[in-house]
């Protein structure tokens, strides 16, 4: 085995090692700082795109009332004038009859049948 260790007698000076360390730290910091801004930018762009998508979905059903669906679904639930409380009861009843948790179901719209 090669001996890479000679007590207090390295092939590199301490000054050099400090220089490399400062350089290394600066590169790691700068790279991750730039990456931070890139992630922020990507997040901003994605958010805008999702908002646009949401708005275009909303304009197709203009005049209809909309509320947010369960947060993990990210869809819009169209209520068609049905009170939110009534809609919640309907959703709970459907979930119960299907024997599935409500957050695993996807409700697109609720309309009163006359």
């Amino acid at each position, binding site marked *: *085995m090669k001996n890479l*260790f000679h007590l*207090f007698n*390295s*092939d590199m000076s301490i000054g050099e090692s400090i220089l490399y360390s400062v350089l*290394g730290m600066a590169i*790691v910091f700068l790279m991750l700082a730039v990456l931070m801004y890139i992630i922020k930018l990507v997040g901003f762009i994605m958010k805008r795109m999702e908002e646009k998508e949401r708005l275009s979905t909303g304009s197709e059903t203009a005049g209809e009332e909309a509320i947010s669906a369960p*947060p993990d679904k*990210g869809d819009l639930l169209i209520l068609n004038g049905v009170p939110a409380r009534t809609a919640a009861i309907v959703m709970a009843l459907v979930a119960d009859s299907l024997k599935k948790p409500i957050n695993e179901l996807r409700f697109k719209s609720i309309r009163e049948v006359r």
Partner: protein
Amino acid sequence: MERIVDIFTRILIDSGFSGFFADGGWKNLIMIALACVLLYLGIVKKFEPLLLVGIAFGMLLTNLPGAHLYNPELWDAYSDGEITLTKIFHDGGLLDILYIGVKSGLYPSLIFLGIGAMTDFGPLIANPSSLLLGSAAQLGVCCAFILAVVFGFDGAAAASIGIIGGADGPTAIFLTGKLAPSLLGPIAIAAYSYMALIPLIQPPIMRALTTPEERKTKMDQLRVVSKGEKIVFPIVVAVFVILLLPATAPLIGCLMLGNLLRECGVTDRLQDTAQNAMMNIVTIFLSISVGATTVASNFLRLQTIVIIILGLAAFAFSTVGGVLLGKLMYKISGGKINPLIGSAGVSAVPMAARVSQVEGRKANPFNYLLMHAMGPNVAGVIGSAVAAGFLLALFG
């Protein structure tokens, strides 16, 4: 009768037991005892058992005289360009062949694939400034590098010792396998032992550097990260980091591929294989091959003790770096960031984040820092891979 005695004598001489009485044979006995201590720590004390048990058993096997499972002289000849891998396949033992995966950087990269498949980068995407904490916690890499040079290690060996401060086993093995393979055993053992000891190493430093007021800080809930962001993240990170620092390609490439398998939602089977079956198989190969490098003649040296001490210093300085930047961010944010999450930037997922959570709750029972600390924690994985890439570009 004389023939029978002759046969028995020959069997005894050829057996491994006679090796203990040969020149330097006592060193093998010490290594076997050390392997048993590590097995005890892994099995009974549960110090990183998934890795330490394999490493300790590899250490045991490689130090049994006559077994010839691992032949360091072959690897020395290979490093000097005197023989090729074909010769190692032909003349080497089982562990020589498994060790090719360490030497080529295959196992650490595949481990990173599994880590990527297991890691949720959501907390980091929700709070990208966590990346700064992940970079500050690489301070230990630099300090240990300087100290290693002061103690007399050459540049490549000092870089390998420094990366212990990244608190990331696969990264340390990857870099050491490339730069200073003869130090692989002590460096891997130091890295994994200190990772297991993080709940003992970090808290005193965290408490010494922060005020009770700072530790009590409650942080706002993180925003919900959309699925789209989580899918784009690994692609963006891989492209950006690898283009800027190509030496990081094996580690960052595999880490981000694993994460993409997790987040894209259409490769569930691959994600499952990457984080379970593949990860387990590679862990067995990696640990036993690393253990195999701890041959007595190479391990029982003063340099091993120095490496163990420097490894501890590396972990301590990394914690200091993370906490100090956490304090700075606390001041800049007007007291919105708890500096305790800075210490989680040392990687060691998720142990370091748990330590931040525990310390935070000691100061304020209503403090829930775990998810906030996971951001710097996974940022530390990227940070240590970038630091390793820089050192590899410098000394490789």
